[in-house]
């Protein structure tokens, strides 16, 4: 089955049968395959102890006898023991010095060491540290040479407390149905050694109690055991990312030794340097290949802020190496080269950052230069040193890529990319790898491994059957949904899908796949999934629910209908030119033409283009009387028609733009009205104050929404912000519901499992909400720090070029919201205050005709940020028209720079 191993086996067999020495070229000729690959496999065989090799060149290989193999294996083992000791940890003499002293004390404390808890953020190396403690216990002979080291992640069974308890403490026969014999727990297996409990905070209360009993008294009871207690000589090492007061007070009191590992930001730059070097050297070992890294890329890797600390740096390096390797193999490149631009964006940004560490940069540069010792000081070369040992027997990701490449024919070779390989990976070679790469931290916190595994399995199935891609964010949302669905079903809480039959009829294919998925889930979790639940699963799959995939479909039609011989056509033309489109229809109404003739003209157009107008039509007119056309036309043609009066060029521009983007008629209509209101209405009457709200939605309105609700409520002032839970069944109905809410609430954000774009309300995904950084942004957006009034007061009297400062500020605010939504970014309110000031003074300076400050490299910048420039320019038309001013490209560039420079680094999965 393991195709990957075939080639390796061929080589092994050849050497075994010949019994003589051979070099790589001879073997390659004999087997008619690529020499580089043969070398790689030979190295593997060597590391495995299957073959011996000679010193010198060319290297000669020979099949090794069993005894030789044992001797080599022992050497490798001895070596790995030494490698694990604390001294091997980067920073053992510096950032980690105190922690290592603590750890040594914990191990050496008589008679059997102190139970220890290791604190630290995700990716700070807690597991590695625990392993080192074990190795130290072996070295210092505090435990026997064969003492066990058992590791367990408490998150693995976190949704099933009973199973978790049983797994750790064992089960007595008859404890529950199916427990037909006593079962040994980890505690027993770890007797005489160390039990490492990762994510110990996920231990349920009953598990905690038993653990504390063991810590205090040295004995425990397996599940279902009431009379006898068991004893074990086990040193517990726990690890956690949790820092809440509650948790700390429970655990600190009971576990005598607490060690806190520092986050990457607290490590010295020298240590970070060591880590980056180390990770590259590891990859070189796996690749059996030199890696050349651009100096700028090295610097970026040393300076960026990795979300998940050291683990993140390692992942990022692994990914970039895999990408570079793929390129190397598919493009006949001469060397494996990693450039700054190959790195993920957030890493690249590290190069620009510098931080306070700038002084060290010079030192680093020198060190890199010294290390490379080559003429080109812009790169660092990691040499493939063949003595680096590799212990893992599993095929590496590189071998998998290698195999795929050799299977792909020449023409398609260049189009091969890592993403495709991963997507087509149905044998699971990438599974472990991908798990390492994906945003483990957040995911693992919330989704038990088994749920995540099943989620991926059923989504892969759906992907195959429906021919559609589902990204990690979608999978995560489904996983969350699944957790609460399982809970509901186990508790026998019935849920009713209000529109099941309709849904089924509309999405027959998705429904069938959902049935299959349900089947798989039922089997895995031993539950029975009712039809209504399957309805909800269907919704996760059906395409028309997600907004993003509506290109090349029929769009809502736009007709501009104005009095005057050419008003309509010139307005539309302006909008078309700005947007680079030919969509939309202009109908001019010369004053001498009878209205009923115009009506016929419009009707004929609508009837002729009926096919293209299936999604509806928006009529943009200049006078209220023309809006009556809409209902008449609608009746006569059967097409859904909306009309907006008092249309300005801006309204035409905006409506056309979002119609092209594929938005729904109701949405476009609401948007057009919104522009109208904000530019006109606010001068006449003030809207009554509305309470702020954030909408939290999921398909059931219960499961995931409840969890999101629990995350959001603590960060808001409930007197001022209402968190509204809603069920999302169908897009239009959902939006209508929000429409109604808008009357009473000022909806500041929508949070949910399906991406919804509703007018200009920012959307946060479920994953965002479980990310502390993005959650803080939401918090600021919902906080009551509205400075508008104060700002207006501050500027009254200072900005005297406009009639009304409030009008100016309100218009600017609308513009800022619009630019944010068009650029699809979310800005911190702090930045918005700054931008508001900038724009207010910009208008003032234009009105006073003050000189414009040129923007450096404006040509280059506007070429690079073409789209962003256009978006900002379009938004600025509002003030340009309002004050009859012109805003130059230089000034637009400054604004783009402010918006893009301060964009929040949203998590991307």
């Amino acid at each position, binding site marked *: 089955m393991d195709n990957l191993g075939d080639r390796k086996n061929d080589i092994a067999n050849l050497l075994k049968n010949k019994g003589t020495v051979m070099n790589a070229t001879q073997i390659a000729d004999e087997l008619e395959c690529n020499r580089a690959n043969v070398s790689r496999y030979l190295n593997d065989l060597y590391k495995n102890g299957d073959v011996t090799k000679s010193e010198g060149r060319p290297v000669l290989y020979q099949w090794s006898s069993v005894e030789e193999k044992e001797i080599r294996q022992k050497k490798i083992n001895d070596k790995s023991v030494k490698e694990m000791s604390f001294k091997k940890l980067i920073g053992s003499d510096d950032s980690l010095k105190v922690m290592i002293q603590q750890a040594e004390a914990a191990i050496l404390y008589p008679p059997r060491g102190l139970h220890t808890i290791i604190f630290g953020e995700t990716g700070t190396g807690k597991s590695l540290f625990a392993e080192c403690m074990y190795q130290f216990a072996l070295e210092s002979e505090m435990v026997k040479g064969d003492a066990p080291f058992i590791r367990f992640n408490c998150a693995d069974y976190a949704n099933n407390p009973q199973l978790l308890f049983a797994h750790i403490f064992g089960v007595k026969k008859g404890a529950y149905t199916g427990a037909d014999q006593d079962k040994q727990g980890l505690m027993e297996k770890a007797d005489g050694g160390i039990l490492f409990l990762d994510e110990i905070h996920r231990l349920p209360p009953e598990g905690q109690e038993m653990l504390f009993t063991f810590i205090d008294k040295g004995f425990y009871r397996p599940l279902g055991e009431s009379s006898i207690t068991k004893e074990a000589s086990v040193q517990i090492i726990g690890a956690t990312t949790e820092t809440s007061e509650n948790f700390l007070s429970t655990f600190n009191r009971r576990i005598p030794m607490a060690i806190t590992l520092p986050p990457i930001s607290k490590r010295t730059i020298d240590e970070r340097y060591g880590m980056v070097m180390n990770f590259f050297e590891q990859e070189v070992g796996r690749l059996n290949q030199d890696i050349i890294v651009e100096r700028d890329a090295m610097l970026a890797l040393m300076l960026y802020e990795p979300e998940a600390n050291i683990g993140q740096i390692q992942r990022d390096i692994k990914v970039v190496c895999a990408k570079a390797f793929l390129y190397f193999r598919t493009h006949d490149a001469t060397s494996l080269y990693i450039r700054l631009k190959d790195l993920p964006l957030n890493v690249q940004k590290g190069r*620009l*950052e*510098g*931080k*306070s560490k*700038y*002084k060290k940069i010079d030192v680093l540069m020198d060190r890199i230069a010294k290390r490379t010792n080559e003429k080109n000081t812009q790169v660092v070369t990691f040499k493939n040193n063949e003595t680096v040992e590799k212990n893992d027997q599993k095929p590496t990701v590189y071998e998998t890529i290698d195999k795929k490449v050799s299977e792909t024919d020449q023409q398609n070779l260049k189009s091969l990319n890592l993403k495709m390989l991963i997507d087509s990976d149905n044998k699971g070679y990438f599974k472990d790898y991908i798990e390492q790469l994906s945003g483990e931290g957040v995911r693992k916190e919330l989704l038990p491994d088994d749920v995540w595994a099943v989620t991926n399995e059923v989504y892969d199935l759906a992907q195959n059957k429906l021919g559609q891609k589902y990204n990690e964010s979608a999978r995560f949302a489904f996983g969350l949904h699944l957790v609460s669905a399982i809970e509901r079903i186990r508790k026998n809480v019935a849920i009713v899908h209000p529109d099941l039959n309709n849904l089924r009829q509309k999405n027959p294919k998705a429904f069938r796949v959902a049935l299959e998925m349900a089947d798989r889930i039922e089997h895995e979790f031993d539950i029975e999934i009712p039809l209504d639940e399957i309805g909800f699963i269907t919704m996760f799959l059906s395409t028309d629910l997600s907004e993003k995939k509506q290109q090349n479909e029929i769009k809502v039609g736009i007709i501009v209908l104005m009095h005057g011989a050419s008003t309509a056509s010139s307005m539309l033309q302006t909008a078309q030119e700005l947007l680079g489109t030919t969509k939309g229809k202009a109908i001019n109404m010369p004053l001498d033409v009878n209205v009923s003739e115009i009506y016929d003209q419009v009707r004929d157009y609508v009837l002729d283009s009926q096919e293209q107008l299936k999604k509806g039509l928006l009529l943009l007119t200049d006078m209220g009387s023309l809006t009556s056309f809409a209902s008449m036309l609608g009746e006569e043609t059967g097409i859904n028609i909306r009309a907006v009066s008092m249309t300005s060029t801006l309204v035409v521009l905006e409506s056309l733009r979002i119609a092209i983007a594929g938005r729904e008629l109701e949405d476009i209509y609401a948007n057009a009205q919104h522009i109208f209101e904000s530019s006109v209405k606010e001068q006449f009457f003030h809207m009554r104050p509305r309470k702020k709200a954030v909408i939290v939605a999921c398909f059931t309105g219960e499961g995931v929404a409840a969890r999101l609700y629990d995350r959001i409520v603590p960060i808001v002032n409930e007197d001022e912000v209402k968190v509204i839970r809603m069920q999302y069944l169908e897009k239009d109905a959902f939006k209508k519901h929000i429409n109604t809410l808008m009357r009473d609430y000022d909806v500041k954000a929508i949070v949910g499992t399906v991406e919804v774009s509703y007018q200009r309300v920012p959307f946060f995904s479920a994953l965002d909400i479980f990310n502390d950084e993005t959650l803080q942004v939401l918090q600021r957006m919902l906080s009551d*720090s509205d*400075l508008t009034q*104060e*700002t207006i*007061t*501050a*500027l009254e009297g*200072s900005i005297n070029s406009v009639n009304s400062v409030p009008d100016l500020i309100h218009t600017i605010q609308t513009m800022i919201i619009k630019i944010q939504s068009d650029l699809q970014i979310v800005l911190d*309110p*702090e*930045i918005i*205050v*700054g*931008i*508001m*000031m*900038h724009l*207010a*003074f*910009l208008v003032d*300076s234009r009105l006073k005709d003050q000189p414009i*400050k040129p*923007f*450096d490299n404006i040509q280059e910048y506007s070429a690079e940020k073409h789209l962003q420039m256009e978006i900002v320019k379009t938004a600025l038309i509002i003030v340009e028209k309002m004050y009859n001013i012109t805003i130059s490209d230089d*000034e637009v560039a*400054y*604004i783009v*720079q*402010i918006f893009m*420079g*301060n964009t929040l680094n949203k998590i991307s999965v």
Partner: protein
Amino acid sequence: MKTIMLVCSAGMSTSLLVSKMQKAAAAENYDSEIFAVGASEADSMLESKPVDVLMLGPQVRFMKDEFEKKVADKDIPVEVINMQDYGMMNGEKVLATAKTLLK
């Protein structure tokens, strides 16, 4: 005498704040020179003037690291102006912040 330099994008919005700060400084007899520049002119200004403290408009917060790097050898503190103070163009408060930074 202390020199306070304010930086924002294109020097557009800080001039009002500067005049309010100057007023505040005069009222309390604080010997100082306060002025504003756009980000692109900041470099040359730093070379020609003995700047004691550098304050950024919130909209150019993203340039903070860059400036810190530039002035690190001169030991000039760099800070982003508080959003409330900026929104209200509160010269007194920003001046007070500048003074704390100088201590």
